[in-house]
């Protein structure tokens, strides 16, 4: 059997006392708890009108750092692709005229595979892939879950908080 028999086996169920068997007192006790909470402070959030800003240590979807000149920092070394446990990342390299002669022509993360472990960020020798604060991932079709460079590249300025956090953690 696929489930834990201990909790489904009638012979181990607790015997109810007479008071409990009367039923109504227990219902009233339950409702009292509910009423008590009406006057306590609220912890729920009116998402999506009200959004949460996670701390810098939060691991949202991985993104690629875009330098000021609009090019990616990534040199397509493929280490993130190698370390990624669920094989979510595909990198294809090509040559550029820039000082760092290698860049990713294709960089895709399959967000249906990604488990937000952050290994890619940790292994990257260029600090080119980092975990963002973005936790809103909705797709209507599996093919939409594959994020290319268009969705992955985020300007460096927007990622300042995480980059600072990483710099601090590294020392």
């Amino acid at each position: 059997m696929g489930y834990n028999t201990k909790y489904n086996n009638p012979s181990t169920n607790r015997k109810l006392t007479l008071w409990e068997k009367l039923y109504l007192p227990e219902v009233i006790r339950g409702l009292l708890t509910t009423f008590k909470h009406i006057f306590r402070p609220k912890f729920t959030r009116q998402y999506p009108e009200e959004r949460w800003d996670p701390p810098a240590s939060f691991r949202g979807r991985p993104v690629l750092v875009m330098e000021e000149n609009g090019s990616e920092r990534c040199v397509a070394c493929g280490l993130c692709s190698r370390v990624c446990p669920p094989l979510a990342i595909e990198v294809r390299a090509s040559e550029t005229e820039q000082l760092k002669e290698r860049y990713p022509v294709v960089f895709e993360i399959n967000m249906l595979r990604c488990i937000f472990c952050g290994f890619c960020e940790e292994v990257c020798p260029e600090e080119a892939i980092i975990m963002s604060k973005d936790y809103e991932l909705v797709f209507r079709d599996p093919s939409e879950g594959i994020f290319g460079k268009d969705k992955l590249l985020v300007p460096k300025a927007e990622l300042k908080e995480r980059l600072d956090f990483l710099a601090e953690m590294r020392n």
Partner: protein
Amino acid sequence: MPKFTIDGNEYEAQAGQTIIQVAQENGIDIPHFCWHPALSVAGNCRMCLVEVEKTPKLQIACGTIVTEGMVVKTLSETATKGREDVMEFLLINHPLDCPICDEAGQCKLQDYAFDHSRGESRFVEEKNHKDKRMPLGPQILFDGERCISCSRCIRFAEEVAHQPVLTFVHRGDHVTINAVPAESFDNNMSMNVIDICPVGALTSRDFRFKARVWDMSFTDSVCPGCSRGCSTRIGVRNNEILRTEPRNNPNVNSYWMCDYGRVEMYPAVNEGRIDGPRMKDAAGKQQATDYDTAARVTAETLKKYHKDEVLILGSAAVPVEDNYAMLKLAREHFGKQTIPFISHIVGEDDRLLLKADKTPNSMGATLAGCVADGHYPHVHGEKAAHTTVLELLRSRKIKAVFALGDNFLTDPQLLEAFEHVEFFACHAANETITSRRADVVFSISHWAERDGVFVNFEGWAQSLNPAVTTNYQVRGRDQLNMSRLDRFGSPYDKWARGHKRDAREGWHFVQLVSNQLGSKWHYLHTEQLFEEIAATNPEFKGMSYESLGSLGQPIASKHSMVKEPIYQEVYQETGAPLMGSGN
């Protein structure tokens, strides 16, 4: 025969052997950069330092000849410290740009930095800057900053390629490699320097940045470029061949392969393929069909002609097994004793590796019972030699042709003589002039997609392995090599959607046609055919795919040519990825 000890164990050396040679033969790894078993000793990298008792300083294992009673220590404190110091010096000006470098994953410097260095640098000054991306020849780019000045490339150019144009320029820490003025390292062996360069200083224009070493699967194979049949290794990612590199085989190609075989053979497997069988319709246009229809039409049409009007052709471009099957068909149904195959002799031997015969299996086809037919100089518009096939076609006696995979209609005279052929069925892997002329085309697997045996011009038989999968994969002895990406990919991953072609090994189609003609063959895989060949043909006696292994065997009449593999290598010397396939 001096006896001596390395790390307390006694070994026996041949007179004149150096410490590193004996160590390699016995499976002891002494780290080295500049020493290469097939090149002269330079002794300039100092990585191979070992302690020899009774000498005041550390000695280089690559340049020290073993003497009686010598006591060598590779693991002592002094030796270890010596190696660590050498590594520290080598890394002083090294850019450490492994993330960009193509050599990463199969780099000696990287490996030794893990095994033989302190792991930290005391050098805080600005590193030297040198030329990057400098072309040394048409195929090779040089990165001066990565070079560790081992001089392997210089010695290769001089000693193996016989084109001594590479040299050191400048002095001290400014030393770098360059081609002598107005020269370029442009011979047909040039790309071997990329393999022997222990670091990523020399990179291939053909491969640059295509993939990381660990993303590819590597499968042992044989180069189909000429009748030398160099032992190679094929790098595949996403069912596409990205590069070929040589494998050390002392009996065939040593550590080398030629540039022609390296860069011109594999693209045909990736591009321009015939995907599924085709047949000409009434209007003369080739349309896709299925294997059984193609075989039935071929058999029925061939039956209509008199036996003498049918020409069956073998091929030197496909393995022995296909030729054997084709000859068997010709004997059973068309009363022929033997069948011709067309040889492709182009140019001349280069006296290093490349042969004039540009097919890998002329010898194998001949041994299987086919007869080489004439030679057709495709180049320089020379007058073609007199050949029986051409003569037969010209006499208009031949009405129907059934040929194994071979692009022979590139010869204009043959093409012209083909005008009178009423029915032409052929095997083809690529869209070629031959396949376009055919009425029925059977789509065959390429050399990189199949099992089979090639026999080189010296009589050395080697077996192929499937490196790329087809729709119809006949699994040979082992599982197909697959890289981690291929193994764990699902149909939803773009990187696992490499195209698989609808192709089969040539003998399948011979069997289909033959059975339509009335035979009762029942071969299931290529190995069965080879077993039959080994049992009936004395030249292949006792051979099997297993006995051929990765290095091959000589045919029976050439047994005297065996040279033992010289080194049991600890580190493979040519381009061997240390973390190639697997997880």
